[in-house]
C-alpha cells in the first residue's frame, strides 16, 4: 500500500481509537493512504467504526493513537478546510439554500466579495438547484437538501471531501441519481473523495478502490481495487464483472 507511485495525499498510520465509555477500542492499527484525486469508498458492517475513522481522517476527532497526514502535514496542524457531508440534518435551518452554501466562504473571510456570491450561486447551479436559492431547508426534499450540503462542502474548493453516508436517508431512485451527480461533480473538480457507505453496489459503482473495515476492534482487512472503466453508468451494474466485484466486497465484509 505504501508503494504507490502517486504522492500520498491523505495518509494514516497506526490509527487506534477508544471511546471513554467503552471497554473495547473501536479502531486498532488502521493504516491507509489515498493518492490525490482518488475516489475511495469505505465499507463495513454498521457500528464497525467507519464514521469514527472518517472523522479522524478529517481532523474532527483526535485519535487515541496514530498519525494522520493531509498533504504532507500532520492533520492537527493543517489549517486548510476540508469538505464534509453528513447523512442528514446538517443544513442550518435558519439559512436559505444560498446562505447555507455561502457559509464556508464567510468562515474563510470572503464574505462580501461579489466573487464569493457568484461562487455560491454557481455551486448551487452545479448541483442542479438554480432557482432554489431563497428556499429554506424545511422547504426542500431530502434529496435537494443533500445537494445543498454537497454544494456547501465544495464551494470553498477543498482538496479533500469526506462523505458520511450522504445518501443513506434517500429513497433508492434518488440515491442512484445522486451517485451519478456526485461522479459528475468529482470529474469537474480536482478533489479527493472518501465515501463511507453501507451500500456495496454504490461503493463499487462510484469508487476507484473499496476499503473494508472489519472486526472489533476494527482494522482495514481488505483493499479491493475497482478497475471498471469510467465514466461509470448505472447500466454497468448489470455486467458480470461488476457483479464479481460486488461479491468480492461482500465476502470481504463478512470476513470469508
Amino acid at each position, binding site marked *: 500500500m505504501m508503494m504507490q507511485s502517486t504522492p500520498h495525499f491523505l495518509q494514516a498510520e497506526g490509527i487506534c481509537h477508544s471511546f471513554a465509555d467503552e471497554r473495547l477500542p473501536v479502531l486498532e492499527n488502521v493504516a491507509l493512504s489515498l493518492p490525490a484525486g482518488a475516489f475511495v469508498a469505505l465499507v463495513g458492517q454498521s457500528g464497525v467504526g467507519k464514521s469514527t475513522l472518517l472523522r479522524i481522517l478529517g481532523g474532527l476527532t483526535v485519535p487515541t493513537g496514530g498519525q494522520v497526514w493531509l498533504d504532507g502535514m500532520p492533520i492537527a496542524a493543517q489549517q486548510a478546510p476540508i469538505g464534509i457531508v453528513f447523512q442528514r*440534518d446538517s443544513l442550518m435551518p435558519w439559512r436559505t439554500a444560498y446562505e447555507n452554501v455561502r457559509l464556508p466562504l464567510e468562515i*474563510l473571510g470572503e464574505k462580501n466579495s461579489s466573487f464569493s456570491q457568484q461562487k455560491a450561486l454557481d455551486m448551487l447551479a452545479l448541483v442542479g438547484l438554480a432557482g432554489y436559492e431563497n428556499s429554506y431547508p424545511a422547504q426542500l426534499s431530502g434529496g435537494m437538501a443533500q445537494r445543498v450540503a454537497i454544494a456547501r462542502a465544495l464551494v470553498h474548493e477543498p482538496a479533500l471531501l469526506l462523505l458520511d453516508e450522504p445518501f443513506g436517508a434517500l429513497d433508492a431512485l434518488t440515491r442512484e441519481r445522486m451517485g451519478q451527480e456526485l461522479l459528475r461533480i468529482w470529474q469537474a473538480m480536482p478533489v479527493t473523495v472518501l465515501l463511507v457507505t453501507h451500500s456495496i453496489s454504490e461503493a463499487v459503482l462510484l469508487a476507484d478502490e473499496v476499503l473494508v473495515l472489519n472486526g472489533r476492534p476494527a482494522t482495514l482487512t481488505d483493499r479491493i481495487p475497482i478497475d471498471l472503466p469510467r465514466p461509470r453508468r448505472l447500466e454497468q451494474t448489470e455486467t458480470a464483472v461488476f457483479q464479481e466485484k460486488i461479491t468480492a466486497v461482500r465476502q470481504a465484509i463478512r470476513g470469508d
Partner: protein
Amino acid sequence: MQNWIERQPNWLVIAASFSCLLLLWQLLVVLGGYDRFILPGPADVARQFGVVVKDGRLLRHTLITLSEVIPGLLIGLLIALPLGYLLANSPLAERLISPYLIASQAIPGIAIAPLLTIWIRSTYWSRVLVAVIVVFFPILINIIAGFRSVPPELYQLMGSLRATRGQIFRKLEIPAMMPVLLAGLKVGATLSVIGALVGEFVQPKSEGLGFLLVTARYQFKTDLVFVVLVTLAVIALSMYGLVTLLEKRLLRWRKQM
C-alpha cells in the same frame, strides 16, 4: 355551531367571549347582592379606572413598575447567557455549579425578597433584584437547553471549515439556540412582572403598582384592587406579545416549515 365559530376572525371571538365574561360578572354582583368592597362590578371598576387615569396615579405607578420589570428581565438574561454558555460547554463547571443552582430552586425566589431589603439599601434595586432572581432560572434552563440542542453534525461541519471559537458562537450557537432562548424569554417576561410586584410588596415605599394594590386593599377600595390587577395582566400580556413579535421577526425561517 362549532364550525360557525371557527370561521369567525380571532379578534371577534375574543371580543365576544370577553363581553360574555363581563356580563356574567355583572350578573353575579347584581344577583348575589354583594357590597362594592367585597365584589365590585365591571362598571365600578371601569369608573375607578377612569378616576386613576385622570389623576395620573395609574400611569405614574405603572411606569415605576415597568422601570423595575424591564431591567429585571434584561439583567436576568445578561447573567443567564454567559453562565448558560459556561454550563453547557464545560462539564467541570456543570458539576461544580449545577448542584447549587438546583438546590437554590428549593428556596422560592420570592422568599429571598425580605432578605434583599435588609442587604440592599436602594429600594429600587432591591425590587429589580427580586425580578432578576425570579426570571433567572427559567431563562438559564432554556439557554442551556438551547446550546445543547445544536446538532453535533453542525459542530463537526464548523470543525471541517476550521472555524474559530468566535465564529462557531456567532454563526452556529447563537442562531441555533434562538428559538429556545425566545421561549425562555416568554416565560421570563411574565415572571418578571410577578417578581417586581413581590419586590414592591416587601419594600413598601410609596410607589409602584404593588404599593397601589396594598393601599387599595387597606382602604377597602376593592374596585381599585381590580384596576391594578387588570393593569398587571395588561403589562404581562404586552411583554409576552413583544417577545412573540421579536420571535416572528427573528425566526422568519420557521414560518416556512
